[in-house]
């Protein structure tokens, strides 16, 4: 690796980028309650939620456990659980 003037780098070239291990609480989706409305995807500050097969799907590689999705879910389908390592 050679350093660039001003520490300028191209997008998507970061090598150590999985930030999910910063999390102390994990959002867990109750798939029975989730109706796939997608509100959680708009609120997630880390863009770590996708709707797949009409259900909320959280990417734990990047979710930092802020809990906004759990707070905003109108169905109460997301609960925060303490991480146990």
């Amino acid at each position, binding site marked *: 690796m050679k350093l660039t003037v*001003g*520490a*300028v*780098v*191209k997008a998507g070239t*970061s090598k150590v980028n999985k930030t999910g291990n910063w999390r102390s609480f994990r959002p867990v989706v109750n798939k029975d309650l989730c109706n796939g409305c997608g509100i959680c995807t708009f609120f997630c500050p880390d863009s770590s939620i996708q709707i797949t097969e009409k259900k909320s799907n959280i990417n734990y590689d990047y979710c930092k456990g802020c809990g906004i999705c759990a707070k905003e879910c109108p169905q109460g389908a997301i609960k925060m659980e303490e991480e146990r390592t």
Partner: protein
Amino acid sequence: MSKKAVIEGSMAVAEAVKACRPKVISAYPISPQTHIVEDLAKMIADKELDSTMVRVDSEFSAASVICGASATGVRAYTASSSQGLLLMTEVLFNTAGMRLPIVITGVNRTISAPITIQPDHQDTMTLRDAGLIQLYVENSQEAYATHIQAFKIAEDREILLPVMVCMDGWILTHSFEPVEIYDQELVDKFLPEYDPLYCLDPEKPITYGSYADNEVMEFRYMMQEAMERAKDKIQDVALEYKELFGEYYGGLIEEYRTEGADVIVVAMGSVLGTIKDAVDEMRENGQKVGAIKVRSYRPFPAEELYNAVKDASIIAVLDKSLSIGQGGPLATDTKAAFYNKKAPKVASFMAGLGGREVTKETIKNIVYKCKKALELNIVADMEFVDLRREII
């Protein structure tokens, strides 16, 4: 054809900046910087200058706007003073670290408290470690020249550092002097269009100043090296300017009647006008006195300064700012430059704080004190010139 006009120092700066055609200007008004950006805003409104003036809520935002503008690959400019410069501080460190070649006028005014709008160098001196090149000017014509030179120095691929042109508030910005304003064609010939190394583009996304834990040492080293290269660049650009415009104000330093001088007064900024007059009068009386203007404070011209004064007996360093708990920054750096060398004695004088007037008599008194110090072989660490002890 160039034109000569009797104008405010602020207008001279605005004319110079206009001729450099920055694409983005952003500023928040603060005395004594205000007239510069007012003049530029008027030039844009009158369609004399094709640029965007971004009005903002603070100096922090003004610095952020031009930092961002520069990152998109355009020439950008701002100006501020005193508390305004302090509010810009965090952004300026970032801008320097991201190696964005903005130009900023540091219109010198002291720092509160006590609150005052009087000029000294306390504000820009606080920013000396930010990674900015700092050039101090003596008069309005030099302010005009130095702004045009500043963009050329900053944007050089070997340098890529912000340049701050420091000029004494009120003394220069608000006094009227005859100033030669040069043709756009001539300025264009001197200053090519800005050719950025990188630019922000949504199609090809990049990050400036990306995260680094274990490489900070190397990035700082790269900045230090760029500063070292700037020593040559500042001198080259001053000579190029001389060739094209016929004016020269010194490179890193300017020597004034230093041949055979026993005592040399070293200072920065507008006070050099007074010092040169005092030197002339003392020379007429047969005193071997000279003066040196430090034009570039960062990078600090240690070698050039040493070579210029090494044959003198004593040098008087006049500081217009105080590193409280240590002394005058210019004197401190000068002493460091001379250490381990056979050098003249260095006497440090604190003068002109908060706009306290520095007259020819003040300078003659300083020179007299230097001669006395030589006679007695005692040089005081630092002296506050014209200190009113009776009111303390």
